[in-house]
């Protein structure tokens, strides 16, 4: 029952994203807050970062998203000054920072393990940056207590870090960094060690704090949900390079490459008539016998697997025309037993042709074929 409707594939995002970076939202006149040009870093034979170009606007919440070993943390460490790039330049507000040590850069970092000084009180930790830059005692006190209030730890000045919970340490680390009013705040998987509930709560708080202080945030994470929830823009890293840069909705709905498709969501990639495309699982309908699939591209297949997840049920459909699709359906009326009975059934799936997005070969692969 193959529909005749041609597989129309959206060609809108054909260009390589790395070559055509999004114009940053509010950087019309002034230079971008952070600019990376042709940044490359290798450790021996291992290329950690293979030519990254980025422009991040002032006040942006920018996320570097990617699996471990994709080069996102190395990129962050190069912006902080802990690593020097082998090639390329790093600019901060138009000033070349390449070669400057961390203590001469207007950036502060929130570390994954918080890195609070165990021999100092919370107050001394927060005041540390101001103390080494010779800010007066009275001003230090005021600013530190203000920063601690902002992260909802007012009155914790005299405690030692060892007396705090993980979430509280995280907040102290944040206060210690923003109290110095850096131009850019770097966050290296800061929520990685927290449990899910706390993480979700901190995501909202971080976003709120960023709005309050107006500092540019560069946020490293491997969690695509976190990236999509918090960011103004996301750069998806893979094997030392950037696959795509764009706002979360664009990354999700118009993934440029096969890798982005799979990493930000589910890899529903099909190949029909020589064109490779993807369609997101929630955009696919499981059609009833009575449904004529008007205006949809339909294909037949077999339900190979069913996973009931409370709010939704996930179906894995093996298509007769080749390939597999994951389909997500809200459990509006379906019960778990009804959902699980579907296994092995013949079904027709359909989607609106305009919901498909063409995907390119990963830029990581083309980089491999064409070194330098």
């Amino acid at each position, binding site marked *: 029952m193959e529909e005749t409707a041609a597989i129309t594939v959206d060609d809108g995002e054909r260009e390589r994203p790395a070559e055509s970076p999004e114009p940053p939202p509010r950087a019309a006149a002034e230079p971008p807050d952070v600019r990376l040009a042709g940044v490359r870093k290798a450790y021996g034979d291992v290329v950690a970062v293979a030519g990254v170009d980025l422009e991040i606007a002032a006040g942006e919440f920018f996320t570097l998203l990617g699996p471990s070993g994709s080069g996102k943390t190395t990129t962050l460490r190069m912006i902080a000054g802990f690593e020097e790039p082998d090639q390329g330049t790093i600019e901060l507000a138009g000033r070349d920072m390449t070669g400057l040590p961390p*203590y001469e850069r207007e950036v502060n*970092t929130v570390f994954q393990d918080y890195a609070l*000084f165990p021999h100092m009180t919370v107050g001394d930790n927060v005041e*540390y940056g101001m103390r*080494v830059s010779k800010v007066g005692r009275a001003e230090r006190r005021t600013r530190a207590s203000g920063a601690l209030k902002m992260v909802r730890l007012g009155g914790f000045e005299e405690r030692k870090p060892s007396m705090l919970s993980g979430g509280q340490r995280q907040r102290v680390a944040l206060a*210690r*960094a923003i109290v*110095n009013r850096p131009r850019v705040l770097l966050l290296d998987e800061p929520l990685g060690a927290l449990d899910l509930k706390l993480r979700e709560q901190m995501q909202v708080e971080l976003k709120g704090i960023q709005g309050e202080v107006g500092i540019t945030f560069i946020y490293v994470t491997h969690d695509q949900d976190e990236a999509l929830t918090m960011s103004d823009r996301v750069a998806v890293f893979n094997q030392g390079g950037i696959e795509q840069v764009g706002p979360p909705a664009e990354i999700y709905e118009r993934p440029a490459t096969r890798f982005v498709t799979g990493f930000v969501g589910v890899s529903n990639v099909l190949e029909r008539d020589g064109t490779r495309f993807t369609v997101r699982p929630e955009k696919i309908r499981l059609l009833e016998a009575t449904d004529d699939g008007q205006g949809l591209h339909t294909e037949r297949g077999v339900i190979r697997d069913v996973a009931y997840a409370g709010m939704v049920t996930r179906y894995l459909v093996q298509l007769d025309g080749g390939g597999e699709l994951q389909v997500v359906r809200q459990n509006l009326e379906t019960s778990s037993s009804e959902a699980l009975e579907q296994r092995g059934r013949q079904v027709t799936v359909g989607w609106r042709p305009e919901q498909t997005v063409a995907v390119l070969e990963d830029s990581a692969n083309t980089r491999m074929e064409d070194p330098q």
Partner: protein
Amino acid sequence: MEAADALASAPRRSAGRRLAGLFHGHGGLQAGALLSGPLAWLVILYLGSLAVMLVAAFWSVSPLSGELVKSLSLDNFKTLVDEPVYRTIAGRTIAIASLVTLTDAVLAFPIAFYMAKVASRRTTAVLVVAVLMPLWASYLVKVYAWRQMLSTDGVINWVLNPLGAHGPGYGNTAVWLVMSYLWLPYMVIPIFAGLERIPNSLLSASEDLGASPWTTFRRVILPLAFPAVVAGSIFTFSLTLGDYITPQLVSNNQFIGNVVYNNVTGGTNLPLGSAFAVVPIVVMILYLLVARRLGAFEHL
């Protein structure tokens, strides 16, 4: 009835299993049984001999017959305080022990820092072996080697004399040099361990917050490593305090240990020797109390 049959027919348990059953769930009993041997050794042989020595410190020797008078008096301690020579010897011993400790701390810190934070893993392993290697050689061999080197026609003078200088010869300086050499590994290893326990992210955080390397050293590394230095100093200080062979071989000066040794083995005055041996014990107890306040015991 059936239950009783079942019990009777149950396989007989071996003595070992019954013992294991007794210990199961009784952690205190288990630990007690395991520790009873070593504990007896520690209490009877080690603390016991110490107690005998402490008691002997209050005895005296009959000036006429030279026999032990086993009645308690404070005369020995009075002698130690009143006779200037004992005060000089105690002062010299403590001064050189302090000097050796200071010297070793100053020498050991850069070595340990290099090993813990700068060198590659491989180099660190080589350096750990290099630092410990002198401990494989006999103490006496090393001191005799120094005795040779420090002698008038030893290698030190052979190098220095053409330059118009000469070595320290035998004396307090020689004792200080040799002791500093002997106990250096005992200082390097605790500091190395202490520095290794400082996460590198703390150093990065300090740099990130605007601290220059020197400020990072002063405000982060040094305060965090200081308890480890104190831990190392317990070794260097107490080992110097108790030594009597090095002073004998590379100087003509007496240490507390020499006085104790001469009085005890020479049989001249065992009680006085015992009383003098109490001095380093008291000094060490005070030292350990201070060290504990400084957090050194978390680094041993």
